[in-house]
């Protein structure tokens, strides 16, 4: 087991920047997810840690050892690839044993480790098959077992669940969490699926255009986005943003009077999550015109506008809503986010 220390790593492809100075510490035994849209640099960062791509600048330490110039095989890590990369010419057994074989592990130990990893992933029955005889989900299990078998100091995962269908993905996610929690392996996990990141990770690093935009626990990221990007990326549907003027250090929305952080002039962006709004039968609120109601089961998702700015709201499922209806809404004022519309960054609540 080891920690990972990434220090101001940059990566250029020609003049194209893929990583613009990324620093990140992953503690011993911690599970960190790199989350972001495609092209944000998350896979590039993972590959730099693996040693599959060399960073342009900066250094990477694993377990206190500078591995920046070491080839992948000398970094003491294991990896699960997006397309599994299960060797098609080897039986499942030999696939799982591959890493141990390369390091010259004794035969009986290899056998024990393979059996243990196979048991963890419930693939004991498949050990003598070839990968072509396996389903996608089973190959995925083999890929994870192969990584676990070497008992790596650091485990890297590159969108390991993205090729599974929805139901299988949910099942594997739960299972993966249980297995990794008991192994307590330091894990760096790349994904573009926020549910995956939220469900699995101790901390999430949101990446955007080659930088880490915010890092924190799933709840922190969800509740206190540090930028419009993070708020708009996390949550399904994402956070609503209303551009509102500040006058006399307050913001008026309908009959509501809201207090943005002190010392702001000009417009601000008010961020509200769809589920942090409720229908105000009485009292203060603002008018929301429904365009499209979508009953989704647990709630009704309303898409509409507030004073011409579009907004999505999740309301209780027992209401009957028609397009064109106007309802009064009230936000949970403890859950409001305030952003600077020019920089896109959060305004500190003092």
């Amino acid at each position, binding site marked *: 087991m080891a920690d990972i220390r990434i220090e101001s790593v940059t990566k250029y492809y020609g003049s194209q920047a893929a990583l613009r100075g990324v620093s990140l510490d992953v503690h011993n035994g911690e599970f960190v997810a790199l989350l972001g849209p495609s092209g944000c640099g998350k896979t590039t960062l993972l590959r730099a840690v*693996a*040693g*599959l791509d060399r960073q342009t600048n900066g250094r990477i330490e694993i377990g206190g050892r500078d591995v920046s110039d070491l*080839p*992948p*095989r000398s970094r003491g*890590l*294991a*990896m699960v*690839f*997006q*397309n599994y*990369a299960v*060797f*098609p*010419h080897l039986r499942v057994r030999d696939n799982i044993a*591959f*890493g141990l074989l*390369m*390091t010259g592990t004794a035969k009986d130990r290899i056998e024990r480790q393979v059996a243990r990893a196979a048991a963890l992933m419930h693939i004991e029955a498949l050990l003598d098959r070839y990968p072509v005889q396996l389903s996608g989900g089973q190959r995925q299990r083999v890929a994870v077992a*192969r990584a676990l078998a*070497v008992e790596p100091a650091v485990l*890297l995962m590159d969108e390991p669940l993205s090729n599974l269908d929805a139901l299988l993905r949910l099942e594997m996610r739960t299972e993966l969490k249980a297995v990794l929690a008991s192994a307590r392996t330091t894990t760096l996990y790349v994904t573009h699926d926020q549910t995956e990141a939220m469900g699995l990770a101790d901390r999430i690093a949101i990446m955007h255009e080659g930088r880490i935009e915010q890092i924190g626990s799933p709840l922190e990221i969800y509740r206190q986005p540090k930028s419009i990007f993070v708020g708009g990326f996390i949550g399904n549907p994402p956070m609503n943003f209303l551009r509102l003027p500040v006058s006399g250090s307050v913001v008026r929305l309908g009959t509501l009077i809201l207090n943005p952080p002190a010392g702001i002039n000009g417009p601000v962006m008010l961020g509200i999550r769809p589920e942090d709004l409720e229908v105000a039968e009485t009292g203060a609120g603002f008018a929301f015109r429904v365009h499209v109601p979508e009953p989704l089961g647990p709630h009704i998702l309303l898409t509409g506008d507030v004073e011409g700015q579009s907004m999505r709201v999740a309301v209780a499922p027992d209401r009957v809503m028609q397009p064109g209806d106007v309802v009064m809404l009230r936000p949970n004022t403890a859950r409001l986010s305030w952003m600077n519309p020019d920089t896109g960054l959060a305004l500190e609540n003092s």
Partner: protein
Amino acid sequence: MIGSRRVLLISGVLMICAWTLVPIYLVALGGVGGASTIYAWPKPFWPASLSIGNFTAFLQIEGIWAAMLRSVEVAVLCMILSLLLGAPAGYALARFAFRGANLYRLMILMTRAFPVGILALPLAVSFVRLGIYDTVFGVALMHTALALPFAVLVTASLFVGIPRELEEAAWVFGCSGPGAFRRVVMPLAIPGIAATAIFAFVISWNEVFAASVLTVRNKTLTADLLTLLSEAPLQSQLAGGLLLILPSVLFIFFVRRYLFALWGVASR
């Protein structure tokens, strides 16, 4: 309506099969039948007497046997050279994005627009000077020039077809670069490489012009048969022709699974 169309299709397919196979059958009749069949009139469409012993004994007298062995040597040498020179280039094209890769690929494709065999004419002059005229090695060199572009393109597509991730996984799990190539890439590429080798073999085995221009006394089978055209009796020619056809038919059988993948790729 549907039924009659089906009948039309099946009879068409069978006719094309017959169009391909019957001529081969007839040359086999002539080749194995010996002199008696050749001068028979009208010709029997069924072998009167069939004897492989006569056939091979007769081949030895005509010197066709020795020529065939030389042809095998040339083809094997051409196969080895094409792979040794072509496969690394194919791997480079498949795995590395390097400056000049497109230029190199274009150059390889360009050779296709040239009648490469014709280049044996000036090579004959150079080979005399180098002392490799009229040798197995000289012909093999020329044939490699014919087969190499093909070997490069086909192996490139083979290596492209082996996911990079597999190689990366091998690196991560403790392999060095050459180690990953040996343990992961090679086992997966072997069938395709074998097919490429067979193609190189067939290209050399079948080549007539360059082999004829580059040999005088140590003729390959095709070169020998070409001289026999105006000198030897018809049965020798047909026996030689049969000898030329048989291995090719077998080879095509073994590589038939790769045929379309190979040419599909070679056509881009």
